[in-house]
């Protein structure tokens, strides 16, 4: 009796198996396999691609070809990898990016935002190191921005009124600010904002317990 090979499996079994594999691991395992059938099968699992835990070597090895071969709609990555992808994005369908920033400085992040804000619809930024700079507002709120959704967590943003511009497309904003002063500034520049979430000084937020 002949051995069953991996590619002998029917499509529905692949779809079942792929549900349990991280998108980046799917890339690693299958993206270079010369099988149009497999490439078509993994495509839906790569629409939302999380490469935020991958190494520099992984990024250099897989990402350039991936943007050519597959359609990626949402991407999660570290800020240090923004420069690798930004030049490839110009010919891609990417609509949403979630950036994890762990650096004290925001230089890489600012460069990345500047190259992305005119083509992305959704941008999330999570600062995993809270004590660094919060000076990215002038990059986020630019007059030619196409962003409709913006979510910045993990660090307060600091800016003055002259540093931000009117963004007519933004309808959703979730942001952390110290005090209300800058909320008023923002709304003045966001005429179509429908949903606003403001987190203030949450570091001192406590759980409330009552015992009877």
């Amino acid at each position, binding site marked *: 009796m002949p051995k069953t090979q991996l590619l002998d499996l029917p499509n529905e079994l692949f779809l079942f198996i792929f549900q349990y594999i991280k998108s980046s691991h799917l890339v690693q395992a299958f993206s270079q396999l010369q099988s149009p059938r497999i490439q078509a099968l993994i495509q839906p699992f790569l629409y939302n691609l999380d490469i935020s835990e991958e190494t520099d070597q992984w990024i250099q090895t897989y990402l350039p070809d991936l943007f050519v071969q597959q359609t990626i709609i949402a991407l999660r990555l570290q800020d240090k990898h923004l420069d690798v992808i930004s030049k490839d994005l110009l010919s891609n369908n990417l609509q949403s990016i979630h950036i994890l920033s762990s650096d004290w400085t925001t230089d890489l992040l600012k460069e990345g935002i500047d190259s992305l804000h005119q083509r992305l619809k959704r941008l999330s930024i999570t600062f995993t190191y809270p004590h660094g700079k919060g000076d990215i507002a002038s990059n986020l709120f630019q007059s030619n921005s196409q962003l409709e959704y913006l979510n910045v967590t993990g660090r*307060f943003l*600091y*800016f*003055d*009124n002259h540093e931000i511009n009117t963004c007519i497309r933004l*309808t959703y904003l979730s942001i952390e600010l*110290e*005090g*209300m*002063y800058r*909320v*008023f*500034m923002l*709304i*003045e520049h*966001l*005429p*179509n*904002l*429908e*949903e*606003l*979430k*403001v*987190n*203030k*000084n*949450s*570091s*001192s*937020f*406590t*759980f*409330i*317990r*009552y*015992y*009877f």
Partner: protein
Amino acid sequence: MKFRSEDRMIHPPSSIEQQSINHALRRVTFTGCTKYFDHLENFFAIFGSTIEYSSINIDLMYYIIDGKRLERELLHKMPCLSSLDLIIHSTATYCDPIDINTFQSSTWQKFNPIVYFHDSHAHEHTIFTIPYKSDRVRISFD
């Protein structure tokens, strides 16, 4: 120079007070910790007219506010409001308990019921709507 303190904000910028701003705000959520509830009141006074959903989940430092003030400064500033989620937690040593009857007006009856806890030993006061949409309030019956 950028001030990094909440104390800077006493009133909204004068340019905003003096002109009406076009905005489309429908859903607004505030979370966190503040000393100045009047800053939130300023916000709703200026931008409240279009808001339909509001969620306020804050630690209010040093004082408490009752239903009358919330009604006057929040609810009346949001005529389109159809949904309100509220948690206001205060640790206020020298404050008397608020009167729960201040939440019994016809305006408050349009929204979810209000619960008020006062722990006189810990000097803690908590007002929240039920069902509360947060895991911050935990109640144990021993």
